[in-house]
Protein backbone atom coordinates (compact mmCIF):
# COMPACT_ATOMS: atom_id res chain seq x y z
CA UNK A 1 0.00 0.00 0.00
CA UNK A 2 2.69 2.45 -0.83
CA UNK A 3 2.15 5.62 -2.77
CA UNK A 4 5.77 5.69 -3.92
CA UNK A 5 4.95 4.02 -7.17
CA UNK A 6 2.35 6.67 -7.95
CA UNK A 7 4.86 9.41 -7.13
CA UNK A 8 7.43 7.77 -9.37
CA UNK A 9 4.94 7.69 -12.20
CA UNK A 10 4.18 11.37 -11.79
CA UNK A 11 7.89 12.17 -11.84
CA UNK A 12 8.09 10.49 -15.19
CA UNK A 13 4.78 11.65 -16.64
CA UNK A 14 3.94 15.01 -15.08
CA UNK A 15 0.48 15.08 -16.64
CA UNK A 16 -0.87 12.24 -14.51
CA UNK A 17 -2.88 13.26 -11.52
CA UNK A 18 -2.63 11.46 -8.19
CA UNK A 19 -5.70 10.38 -6.28
CA UNK A 20 -6.20 12.59 -3.24
CA UNK A 21 -4.16 11.02 -0.46
CA UNK A 22 -5.96 10.00 2.75
CA UNK A 23 -6.47 13.06 4.89
CA UNK A 24 -5.05 15.35 2.24
CA UNK A 25 -8.26 17.29 1.84
CA UNK A 26 -8.08 18.60 5.41
CA UNK A 27 -4.39 19.36 5.83
CA UNK A 28 -3.66 20.54 2.37
CA UNK A 29 -3.99 24.24 3.17
CA UNK A 30 -1.93 24.29 6.34
CA UNK A 31 1.58 25.64 5.59
CA UNK A 32 4.49 24.40 7.70
CA UNK A 33 4.22 26.82 10.60
CA UNK A 34 7.37 28.16 12.27
CA UNK A 35 7.79 27.26 15.92
CA UNK A 36 5.65 29.77 17.74
CA UNK A 37 4.66 29.97 21.37
CA UNK A 38 1.72 27.69 21.89
CA UNK A 39 -1.38 29.53 20.84
CA UNK A 40 -4.48 29.40 23.00
CA UNK A 41 -6.25 26.18 22.13
CA UNK A 42 -8.61 26.73 19.24
CA UNK A 43 -12.25 25.98 19.86
CA UNK A 44 -12.75 22.31 18.96
CA UNK A 45 -14.12 21.92 15.47
CA UNK A 46 -17.67 20.62 15.39
CA UNK A 47 -17.34 16.86 15.17
CA UNK A 48 -18.54 15.68 11.83
CA UNK A 49 -19.76 12.17 11.26
CA UNK A 50 -17.20 10.02 9.49
CA UNK A 51 -19.30 9.55 6.41
CA UNK A 52 -19.23 13.26 5.63
CA UNK A 53 -15.45 13.47 5.54
CA UNK A 54 -13.74 14.15 2.21
CA UNK A 55 -13.20 11.05 0.10
CA UNK A 56 -10.42 8.75 1.20
CA UNK A 57 -8.56 6.79 -1.44
CA UNK A 58 -6.94 3.91 0.34
CA UNK A 59 -5.55 2.31 -2.79
CA UNK A 60 -2.73 4.25 -4.46
CA UNK A 61 -3.78 5.42 -7.85
CA UNK A 62 -3.43 7.95 -10.62
CA UNK A 63 -5.70 9.52 -13.19
CA UNK A 64 -4.22 9.21 -16.64
CA UNK A 65 -5.14 11.26 -19.72
CA UNK A 66 -6.79 9.15 -22.35
CA UNK A 67 -4.21 9.94 -25.04
CA UNK A 68 -1.24 8.76 -23.00
CA UNK A 69 -2.84 5.59 -21.63
CA UNK A 70 -1.19 3.07 -23.93
CA UNK A 71 2.21 4.64 -23.57
CA UNK A 72 2.00 4.78 -19.78
CA UNK A 73 0.68 1.24 -19.56
CA UNK A 74 3.54 0.00 -21.71
CA UNK A 75 6.04 1.64 -19.39
CA UNK A 76 4.29 0.35 -16.27
CA UNK A 77 4.21 -3.22 -17.51
CA UNK A 78 7.68 -3.54 -19.01
CA UNK A 79 9.91 -1.03 -17.26
CA UNK A 80 11.87 -2.59 -14.44
CA UNK A 81 11.30 0.51 -12.34
CA UNK A 82 7.59 -0.33 -12.04
CA UNK A 83 7.27 -3.96 -13.06
CA UNK A 84 3.47 -4.02 -12.82
CA UNK A 85 3.18 -7.18 -14.85
CA UNK A 86 -0.18 -8.30 -13.55
CA UNK A 87 -3.50 -6.77 -14.48
CA UNK A 88 -6.05 -7.62 -11.80
CA UNK A 89 -9.09 -6.27 -13.56
CA UNK A 90 -10.51 -3.62 -15.83
CA UNK A 91 -13.78 -2.00 -14.89
CA UNK A 92 -15.48 1.35 -14.76
CA UNK A 93 -17.35 3.67 -12.44
CA UNK A 94 -20.29 5.69 -13.68
CA UNK A 95 -20.43 9.35 -12.58
CA UNK A 96 -23.57 10.72 -14.19
CA UNK A 97 -23.44 14.04 -12.33
CA UNK A 98 -20.05 14.77 -13.92
CA UNK A 99 -21.15 13.36 -17.24
CA UNK A 100 -18.21 11.00 -17.09
CA UNK A 101 -17.28 7.38 -16.93
CA UNK A 102 -14.11 6.44 -15.10
CA UNK A 103 -12.40 3.44 -16.62
CA UNK A 104 -10.53 1.68 -13.88
CA UNK A 105 -7.48 -0.55 -14.16
CA UNK A 106 -5.84 -2.31 -11.26
CA UNK A 107 -2.19 -3.34 -11.62
CA UNK A 108 0.02 -5.40 -9.40
CA UNK A 109 3.67 -6.27 -9.13
CA UNK A 110 4.69 -9.64 -7.73
CA UNK A 111 8.25 -8.50 -6.99
CA UNK A 112 7.63 -5.36 -4.95
CA UNK A 113 4.04 -6.20 -3.94
CA UNK A 114 3.02 -2.76 -5.12
CA UNK A 115 -0.41 -2.04 -6.45
CA UNK A 116 -1.64 0.84 -8.53
CA UNK A 117 -5.07 1.87 -9.70
CA UNK A 118 -5.29 3.69 -13.01
CA UNK A 119 -8.26 5.78 -13.98
CA UNK A 120 -9.14 7.27 -17.32
CA UNK A 121 -12.00 9.76 -17.52
CA UNK A 122 -14.13 9.62 -20.64
CA UNK A 123 -17.40 11.25 -21.55
CA UNK A 124 -20.62 9.34 -21.10
CA UNK A 125 -21.92 10.02 -24.61
CA UNK A 126 -19.24 8.43 -26.75
CA UNK A 127 -16.87 6.71 -24.37
CA UNK A 128 -13.83 5.12 -25.93
CA UNK A 129 -10.36 4.30 -24.70
CA UNK A 130 -7.49 2.45 -26.38
CA UNK A 131 -7.42 -1.24 -25.57
CA UNK A 132 -4.57 -2.49 -23.42
CA UNK A 133 -4.75 -6.06 -24.69
CA UNK A 134 -1.42 -5.51 -26.45
CA UNK A 135 0.17 -4.86 -23.04
CA UNK A 136 -1.66 -7.38 -20.89
CA UNK A 137 -3.29 -10.23 -22.71
CA UNK A 138 -5.58 -10.85 -19.75
CA UNK A 139 -7.37 -7.56 -20.38
CA UNK A 140 -9.26 -9.20 -23.23
CA UNK A 141 -12.26 -10.53 -21.32
CA UNK A 142 -12.22 -7.75 -18.74
CA UNK A 143 -12.54 -5.16 -21.49
CA UNK A 144 -15.32 -7.12 -23.10
CA UNK A 145 -17.13 -7.19 -19.78
CA UNK A 146 -16.66 -3.45 -19.31
CA UNK A 147 -17.93 -2.84 -22.81
CA UNK A 148 -20.92 -5.05 -22.14
CA UNK A 149 -21.91 -3.53 -18.82
CA UNK A 150 -20.91 0.12 -19.38
CA UNK A 151 -20.80 0.59 -23.13
CA UNK A 152 -17.21 1.75 -23.23
CA UNK A 153 -15.61 1.05 -26.59
CA UNK A 154 -12.05 -0.22 -26.44
CA UNK A 155 -10.31 0.78 -29.67
CA UNK A 156 -8.13 -1.93 -31.08
CA UNK A 157 -9.67 -4.77 -29.08
CA UNK A 158 -9.46 -8.02 -31.04
CA UNK A 159 -12.96 -9.24 -30.28
CA UNK A 160 -15.19 -6.61 -28.74
CA UNK A 161 -18.50 -8.41 -28.25
CA UNK A 162 -20.89 -8.67 -25.36
CA UNK A 163 -19.74 -11.34 -22.93
CA UNK A 164 -22.29 -11.50 -20.10
CA UNK A 165 -25.53 -10.35 -21.68
CA UNK A 166 -27.01 -11.75 -24.85
CA UNK A 167 -25.93 -10.24 -28.14
CA UNK A 168 -29.28 -8.53 -28.71
CA UNK A 169 -29.45 -6.89 -25.30
CA UNK A 170 -30.37 -3.22 -25.25
CA UNK A 171 -28.56 -0.90 -22.88
CA UNK A 172 -25.64 -1.29 -20.53
CA UNK A 173 -26.79 -2.55 -17.14
CA UNK A 174 -24.21 -1.12 -14.78
CA UNK A 175 -24.82 2.46 -15.82
CA UNK A 176 -26.65 4.38 -13.14
CA UNK A 177 -29.52 5.42 -15.39
CA UNK A 178 -30.19 1.91 -16.69
CA UNK A 179 -33.68 0.71 -15.91
CA UNK A 180 -34.46 -2.94 -16.21
CA UNK A 181 -37.83 -3.97 -17.53
CA UNK A 182 -39.18 -7.42 -16.98
CA UNK A 183 -40.00 -9.34 -20.14
CA UNK A 184 -43.77 -9.85 -20.64
CA UNK A 185 -43.71 -13.55 -19.73
CA UNK A 186 -42.18 -12.74 -16.35
CA UNK A 187 -44.78 -10.07 -15.65
CA UNK A 188 -47.49 -12.58 -16.47
CA UNK A 189 -45.89 -15.20 -14.20
CA UNK A 190 -45.88 -12.74 -11.31
CA UNK A 191 -49.54 -11.90 -11.92
CA UNK A 192 -50.43 -15.56 -12.02
CA UNK A 193 -48.76 -16.07 -8.69
CA UNK A 194 -50.70 -13.21 -7.19
CA UNK A 195 -53.93 -14.82 -8.43
CA UNK A 196 -52.85 -18.15 -6.95
CA UNK A 197 -52.32 -16.62 -3.55
CA UNK A 198 -55.63 -14.80 -3.59
CA UNK A 199 -57.48 -17.88 -4.78
CA UNK A 200 -56.30 -19.93 -1.84
CA UNK A 201 -57.89 -17.77 0.80
CA UNK A 202 -56.31 -17.01 4.12
CA UNK A 203 -57.26 -20.06 6.12
CA UNK A 204 -56.37 -22.77 3.66
CA UNK A 205 -52.64 -22.31 3.51
CA UNK A 206 -50.53 -24.96 5.10
Amino acid at each position, binding site marked *: MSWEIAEKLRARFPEVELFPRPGEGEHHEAPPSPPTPPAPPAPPAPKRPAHEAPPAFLTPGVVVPRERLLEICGVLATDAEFGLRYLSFVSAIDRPEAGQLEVLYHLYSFETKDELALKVRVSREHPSVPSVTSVWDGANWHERETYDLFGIVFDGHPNLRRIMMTDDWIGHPLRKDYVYQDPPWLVEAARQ*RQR*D*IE*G*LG*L*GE*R*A
Partner: protein
Amino acid sequence: MSVQPAETDGKKGLVEQAWQAAVGLVVGLKSTLRTMFEPKATVIYPLEKINVSNRWHGLLALPIDPETDNDKCIICFQCERVCPDRCIHIEATGKGKDRVLTRFDIEMDKCCYCGLCVEVCPTEAIVFVPHYEASTYNRANLLYDLDDLHRAAPKEPIATGVVKVRRQVGGTR
Protein backbone atom coordinates in the same frame (compact mmCIF):
# COMPACT_ATOMS: atom_id res chain seq x y z
CA MET B 1 2.96 -21.63 -30.08
CA SER B 2 1.08 -24.53 -28.65
CA VAL B 3 2.89 -27.42 -27.08
CA GLN B 4 2.30 -30.68 -28.81
CA PRO B 5 1.33 -33.47 -26.47
CA ALA B 6 4.21 -35.83 -25.88
CA GLU B 7 3.66 -39.55 -26.02
CA THR B 8 3.12 -40.44 -22.40
CA ASP B 9 5.81 -42.80 -21.19
CA GLY B 10 6.83 -43.59 -24.70
CA LYS B 11 9.90 -45.42 -23.52
CA LYS B 12 8.07 -47.96 -21.45
CA GLY B 13 6.77 -51.04 -23.07
CA LEU B 14 3.13 -51.81 -23.38
CA VAL B 15 3.40 -54.72 -20.97
CA GLU B 16 5.01 -52.59 -18.32
CA GLN B 17 2.35 -49.94 -18.68
CA ALA B 18 -0.39 -52.51 -18.38
CA TRP B 19 1.27 -53.99 -15.30
CA GLN B 20 1.52 -50.57 -13.63
CA ALA B 21 -2.10 -49.84 -14.42
CA ALA B 22 -3.09 -53.16 -12.89
CA VAL B 23 -1.08 -52.45 -9.73
CA GLY B 24 -2.64 -48.99 -9.45
CA LEU B 25 -6.06 -50.50 -9.85
CA VAL B 26 -5.42 -53.05 -7.11
CA VAL B 27 -4.15 -50.39 -4.71
CA GLY B 28 -7.24 -48.30 -5.36
CA LEU B 29 -9.58 -51.25 -5.04
CA LYS B 30 -8.00 -52.17 -1.72
CA SER B 31 -8.98 -48.76 -0.37
CA THR B 32 -12.50 -49.01 -1.63
CA LEU B 33 -12.80 -52.53 -0.23
CA ARG B 34 -11.70 -51.28 3.16
CA THR B 35 -14.33 -48.56 3.00
CA MET B 36 -16.98 -51.17 2.35
CA PHE B 37 -16.63 -52.45 5.90
CA GLU B 38 -16.76 -49.04 7.52
CA PRO B 39 -19.97 -47.73 9.02
CA LYS B 40 -22.36 -46.22 6.55
CA ALA B 41 -22.08 -42.48 5.95
CA THR B 42 -25.59 -42.07 4.55
CA VAL B 43 -29.09 -42.33 5.94
CA ILE B 44 -32.21 -43.42 4.11
CA TYR B 45 -33.76 -40.00 4.19
CA PRO B 46 -37.52 -40.23 4.31
CA LEU B 47 -37.31 -43.15 6.73
CA GLU B 48 -34.48 -41.81 8.82
CA LYS B 49 -34.03 -38.21 9.73
CA ILE B 50 -30.96 -36.31 10.77
CA ASN B 51 -30.84 -33.95 13.66
CA VAL B 52 -30.07 -30.37 12.78
CA SER B 53 -28.24 -27.94 15.00
CA ASN B 54 -30.22 -25.54 17.12
CA ARG B 55 -28.84 -22.63 15.10
CA TRP B 56 -30.28 -24.11 11.95
CA HIS B 57 -31.72 -21.54 9.57
CA GLY B 58 -34.99 -23.29 9.00
CA LEU B 59 -38.44 -21.81 8.87
CA LEU B 60 -39.23 -18.51 10.48
CA ALA B 61 -41.81 -18.34 13.22
CA LEU B 62 -43.39 -16.00 15.74
CA PRO B 63 -43.53 -18.11 18.89
CA ILE B 64 -46.37 -17.56 21.33
CA ASP B 65 -45.32 -16.17 24.68
CA PRO B 66 -47.17 -18.23 27.35
CA GLU B 67 -47.38 -15.24 29.70
CA THR B 68 -49.31 -12.98 27.36
CA ASP B 69 -50.70 -15.69 25.10
CA ASN B 70 -49.54 -13.63 22.16
CA ASP B 71 -46.36 -13.14 20.18
CA LYS B 72 -43.69 -10.73 21.35
CA CYS B 73 -43.74 -8.49 18.30
CA ILE B 74 -43.64 -4.80 19.21
CA ILE B 75 -44.23 -3.67 15.62
CA CYS B 76 -40.96 -1.81 15.21
CA PHE B 77 -40.61 -2.77 11.52
CA GLN B 78 -36.88 -3.46 11.96
CA CYS B 79 -37.07 -6.90 10.36
CA GLU B 80 -39.04 -5.53 7.44
CA ARG B 81 -36.43 -2.87 6.88
CA VAL B 82 -33.37 -5.10 7.18
CA CYS B 83 -34.67 -7.91 4.97
CA PRO B 84 -32.48 -8.01 1.84
CA ASP B 85 -35.20 -9.67 -0.23
CA ARG B 86 -38.03 -7.51 1.13
CA CYS B 87 -40.11 -10.60 1.83
CA ILE B 88 -41.57 -9.48 5.18
CA HIS B 89 -44.72 -7.37 5.13
CA ILE B 90 -46.08 -5.88 8.33
CA GLU B 91 -49.14 -3.76 8.93
CA ALA B 92 -50.62 -2.57 12.21
CA THR B 93 -53.49 -0.47 13.48
CA GLY B 94 -54.13 1.49 16.63
CA LYS B 95 -51.95 3.77 18.69
CA GLY B 96 -49.86 3.33 21.81
CA LYS B 97 -50.84 0.34 23.91
CA ASP B 98 -53.70 -0.65 21.63
CA ARG B 99 -51.42 -1.11 18.66
CA VAL B 100 -52.12 -4.51 17.19
CA LEU B 101 -50.63 -6.47 14.39
CA THR B 102 -53.04 -6.89 11.52
CA ARG B 103 -50.68 -8.39 9.01
CA PHE B 104 -47.37 -10.21 9.30
CA ASP B 105 -46.65 -12.00 6.05
CA ILE B 106 -43.42 -13.69 5.09
CA GLU B 107 -42.97 -14.88 1.55
CA MET B 108 -40.92 -17.93 2.32
CA ASP B 109 -40.22 -18.57 -1.37
CA LYS B 110 -38.38 -15.26 -1.57
CA CYS B 111 -36.65 -15.66 1.77
CA CYS B 112 -32.92 -16.30 1.57
CA TYR B 113 -32.63 -17.54 5.15
CA CYS B 114 -29.95 -15.03 6.02
CA GLY B 115 -31.20 -14.51 9.55
CA LEU B 116 -30.83 -10.75 9.61
CA CYS B 117 -34.42 -10.34 10.78
CA VAL B 118 -33.78 -12.65 13.71
CA GLU B 119 -30.64 -10.75 14.51
CA VAL B 120 -32.14 -7.26 14.60
CA CYS B 121 -35.34 -8.20 16.46
CA PRO B 122 -35.13 -6.46 19.86
CA THR B 123 -37.59 -8.78 21.60
CA GLU B 124 -36.69 -12.09 19.96
CA ALA B 125 -40.19 -12.20 18.56
CA ILE B 126 -39.12 -13.72 15.25
CA VAL B 127 -37.01 -16.85 15.48
CA PHE B 128 -35.74 -19.70 13.38
CA VAL B 129 -37.23 -23.09 14.04
CA PRO B 130 -35.19 -26.19 13.19
CA HIS B 131 -37.58 -27.47 10.60
CA TYR B 132 -36.50 -28.36 7.10
CA GLU B 133 -39.46 -29.95 5.40
CA ALA B 134 -41.32 -26.99 3.93
CA SER B 135 -41.57 -28.02 0.32
CA THR B 136 -44.93 -27.84 -1.35
CA TYR B 137 -46.39 -28.32 -4.80
CA ASN B 138 -47.74 -24.82 -4.99
CA ARG B 139 -45.63 -21.72 -4.60
CA ALA B 140 -48.58 -19.86 -3.18
CA ASN B 141 -48.47 -22.14 -0.15
CA LEU B 142 -45.19 -20.57 0.79
CA LEU B 143 -46.78 -17.30 1.77
CA TYR B 144 -46.87 -17.56 5.56
CA ASP B 145 -49.27 -15.25 7.36
CA LEU B 146 -49.64 -14.53 11.05
CA ASP B 147 -51.51 -17.76 11.80
CA ASP B 148 -49.00 -19.88 9.97
CA LEU B 149 -46.12 -18.18 11.71
CA HIS B 150 -47.70 -18.77 15.12
CA ARG B 151 -48.36 -22.38 14.25
CA ALA B 152 -44.89 -22.96 12.82
CA ALA B 153 -43.33 -22.49 16.22
CA PRO B 154 -42.88 -25.93 17.68
CA LYS B 155 -41.57 -26.47 21.15
CA GLU B 156 -38.76 -28.74 19.99
CA PRO B 157 -36.97 -29.69 16.78
CA ILE B 158 -38.70 -32.11 14.49
CA ALA B 159 -35.95 -34.66 14.88
CA THR B 160 -33.45 -35.33 17.62
CA GLY B 161 -30.68 -37.55 16.47
CA VAL B 162 -30.98 -40.05 13.67
CA VAL B 163 -34.43 -41.43 14.27
CA LYS B 164 -36.20 -44.24 12.52
CA VAL B 165 -39.52 -43.19 11.13
CA ARG B 166 -42.15 -45.91 10.98
CA ARG B 167 -42.20 -47.44 7.51
CA GLN B 168 -45.37 -46.37 5.81
CA VAL B 169 -47.61 -48.71 3.96
CA GLY B 170 -46.68 -48.89 0.32
CA GLY B 171 -42.93 -48.43 0.61
CA THR B 172 -41.09 -45.17 0.74
CA ARG B 173 -43.63 -43.17 -1.18
